[in-house]
């Protein structure tokens, strides 16, 4: 219907954005009793999201004519932004920004570097930036989930953690069951994404590749590659995080810092 009303590609794109944004707002309006705060967050998130993605589109269009190294600059900026977003979800954890930044840089950075070395991700701006951003964004989501879940686990098990300390346990030992629970919980979405691939959903990158003329079989295999890359980066970032987070939850005298708010 929209394509009959709007004839230029840009106008059609804007119209589609408005329709989908309104749809999301309507759904959140229906669900406002469940999470009233989210309804207020959504319009800002939508405006921010569309502005950011349009800006990235413009930068990509500009970069396509520029040198390769600029893609590294963009990915670094994305990692900084991702760490800042994680910090907002993990407010109670001291020095969460640095923790998230190190974890995302190691997780996404190492995995992307390996993929580039093996030639799985070509060192071209048009591939590196979109695939890299997908890996960074998913790593960021997993980090937020991990730290949020861990905060919840710790604040609801203060008695058990301190009991372990009173028995002479190290902070690492006292925290271990809750680190494991958070680690498992945050990776479930990534594993389920791979498990349900092709059956429950056909992800955007595969759809995009097919639409732009790639072989559907290659597109399918490449989609699997991207999702497993995301899982590796997310798991590696959480592993780094789980090592760094213990020192932030205890004092040097091995006293638990984090309490229920």
């Amino acid at each position: 219907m929209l394509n009959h009303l709007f004839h230029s590609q840009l106008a059609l794109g804007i119209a589609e954005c408005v329709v989908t944004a309104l749809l999301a707002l309507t759904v959140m309006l229906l669900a406002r009793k469940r999470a009233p705060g989210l309804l207020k967050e959504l319009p800002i998130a939508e405006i921010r999201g569309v502005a950011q993605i349009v800006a990235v589109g413009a930068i990509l269009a500009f970069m396509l004519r520029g040198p390769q190294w600029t893609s590294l600059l963009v990915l670094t900026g994305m990692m900084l932004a991702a760490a800042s977003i994680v910090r907002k979800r993990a407010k109670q954890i001291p020095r969460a920004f640095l923790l998230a930044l190190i974890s995302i840089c190691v997780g996404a950075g190492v995995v992307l570097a390996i993929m580039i070395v093996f030639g799985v991700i070509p060192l071209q701006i048009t591939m590196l930036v979109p695939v890299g951003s997908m890996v960074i964004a998913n790593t960021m989501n997993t980090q937020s989930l991990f730290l949020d879940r861990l905060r919840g686990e710790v604040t609801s098990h203060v008695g058990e953690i301190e009991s372990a300390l009173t028995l002479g346990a190290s902070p690492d030992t006292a925290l271990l069951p809750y680190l494991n629970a958070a680690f498992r919980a945050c990776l479930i979405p990534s594993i389920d994404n791979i498990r349900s691939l092709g059956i429950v959903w056909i992800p955007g990158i595969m759809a995009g590749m097919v639409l732009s003329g790639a072989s559907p079989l290659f597109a399918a295999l490449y989609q699997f590659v991207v999702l497993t890359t995301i899982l590796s980066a997310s798991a590696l970032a959480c592993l780094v995080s789980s090592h760094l987070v213990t020192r932030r939850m205890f004092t040097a005298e091995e006293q638990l810092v984090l309490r229920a708010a």
Partner: protein
Amino acid sequence: MPSNSQLACQNLGRALPPPESRPLLANVNFELGRGDVLGIVGPSGAGKSTLLRLLNRLDEPTAGTVWLDGVDTLTLPPRELRRRIGMVMQRAYLFPGTVGENIAFGPKQQDRIISIGEIDSLLTRVGLTGYASRDAFTLSGGEAQRVAITRALANDPEVLLLDEPTSALDEAARRGVEALLESLIRERHLTCVWVTHSIEQARAMADKVLALKAGRVDAYGPAAEVLRA
């Protein structure tokens, strides 16, 4: 500082960090010889649990000193200190797993393997014969607290801190656990700091009593003297 005391504290206190800086506890002094039982009494919010947590450094004192066998506890590694000063909390807070695994937890932290025979014998002593393989989460409140006491004793502590260990139990379980603690303390000649709401319990068990009120020492001395007032 005290030469013959096993546990002592001098001007011990803790205040909230700035900007609030409100004192939670101030100027606490006491001295306990080996096998002495100190009863800590006082209304809710008086600072009783805060005091216990300073003794094994679950919280950091902001003033004063705690001495264990004449050594300033700030000079001891926290894990060693907590192994030597055991603690039983208001609730059992058992870990997932069997009763036996819970009891073996403390010794395992020092790379000491406690045998099944030792675990069984400890459980028999607290009236839980044959419980070693039971799931810790299937126990009643009284049974769980008995396991928590056994778990603390399996570490062979020199001092035992009891933070109202029977306050979350029903009347029947409370009497049983109290009787058990009394006999264990006498039998092992344990130095003990026992936080209690019950004057009767303090009178029955304590050699000395320290009464707290709004974070300050209201009275301290031999139990008979302090509790007579």
